[in-house]
């Protein structure tokens, strides 16, 4: 089933999503990967202001390539999610409602995603010139010294995704193997 979603997400938006559903996402998402996660967690732990509101937000694990002159975006695509497995719970506690990445993640993280009601979306990796055509705007909003690992505010239109883990605990990677 294909569904259209808009950010920020609400609980009603995600409760009926099923692993395997195709999603077309529009709105603002936030690019943040390894180094940015460490800083966000430091800020959470010391009660400092966060670069963006986590409640209802969708984080995209991405380190975009620079925007060439005259274009809206450089190449964008998901990086390996499993590296963020141990860096995700503090963000889930703050109400993060969606994550976009690539690949399967560990059991512990899968359970946490279900507990905190956060959807794990995947985008196929390595189709980054194509995905760039779905970006309306991209800007660096925090941790500029991290270069491609900074936090980015990204406006997407009709961004193609799959639901990988739904909040009932289903997993697209297991379902894919069962169908074969």
């Amino acid at each position, binding site marked *: 089933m294909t569904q259209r979603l808009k950010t920020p997400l609400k609980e009603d938006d995600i409760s009926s999503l099923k692993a395997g559903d195709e999603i077309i996402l529009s709105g603002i998402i936030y690019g943040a990967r390894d*180094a940015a996660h460490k800083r966000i967690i430091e800020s959470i732990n010391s009660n400092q202001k966060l670069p963006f509101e986590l409640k209802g937000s969708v984080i995209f694990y*991405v*380190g*975009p*390539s*620079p*925007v*060439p002159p005259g*274009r809206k975006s*450089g*190449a*964008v*695509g998901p*990086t*390996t*999610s*499993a*590296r963020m497995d141990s860096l995700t719970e503090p963000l889930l506690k703050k109400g993060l409602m969606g994550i976009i990445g*690539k*690949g*399967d993640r560990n059991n512990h993280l899968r359970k946490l995603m279900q507990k905190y009601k956060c959807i794990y979306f*995947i985008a*196929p*990796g*390595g*189709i*980054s*010139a*194509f995905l*760039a*055509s779905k970006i309306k705007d991209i800007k660096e909003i925090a941790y500029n010294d*991290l*270069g*491609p*690992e900074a936090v980015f505010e990204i406006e997407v239109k009709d961004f193609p995704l*799959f639901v990988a883990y739904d909040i009932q605990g289903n997993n*697209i*990677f297991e*379902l*894919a*193997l069962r*169908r*074969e």
Partner: protein
Amino acid sequence: MKIIKITKIKNQIKKLIKTASFNLPEDITDSIRQACSAEKNNTAKKILELILKNSEIAAKKKIPLCQDCGNVYIDIKIGENICIEKFSFLQDMADEAVAEAYKENYLRKSIVSDPLFDRINTKDNTPAYLSIVPADTLDGLEINVFLKGGGSENCSFLYMLTPSDSADAIISKVLDAVRQNVTKSCPPVIIGIGIGATSSKVTELARKAAFRNLKIRNADDKYKILENSILEKINNTGIGPAGLGGMTTALAVNIEYMPCHMATLPVAVSFACHSLRRASSKILLP
């Protein structure tokens, strides 16, 4: 003795980085096209079509094939009676070529200086990983550039097997590595396997195997059969493109081997993602 100017090599490296970043090699697109027409799984077919479409957009609009523009490996083969002017500056020159190519082409700079403590981005994607190989049949110089992303680089494995182990032990290690890790890379992948040599050299062999042209099969029948058999087993897992099911988990399994110590059987596995970036050129001085 024929002299090659170091600036000529630098310009070639810059050109090759540009070519590799925006153009998927023909052997890869041919292989994806074939896989796409053979796939019965609709999602798999759709993803393979997107990969082909991505390569067209990248070439036309000069947007990198992948946002991870990679580590830069540069292998230079030097032929007989060739002298590189200012040879001792080759590493500096390679780094300059990388820095300029990454800046001029708006490629992502992904290298951090200190690997453990500071991890500060070098902001120019240097250093380049340079290797120099003598080649006695070459009338000049051959430059090979390979760009390898971090996601697939993380899927690299070294196994020190024992001489009593058979090909089955290798098959089982490779299949485990694929099952546990392939969705963290970008399937369909190319699996490079190095067998023999030493623990350090075998990982180099695996990397070379991963970047080998898909149309080249192993010249030795025993290894060719092993390549085909591992490929078939990987694709029978049903993991498929992006891990969403299908029969195209890998496009190829390439093996490179060398002699090894009688007490050892080193095996290394290197994954290359479908967005395989390589380019090569020759400077001939006959």
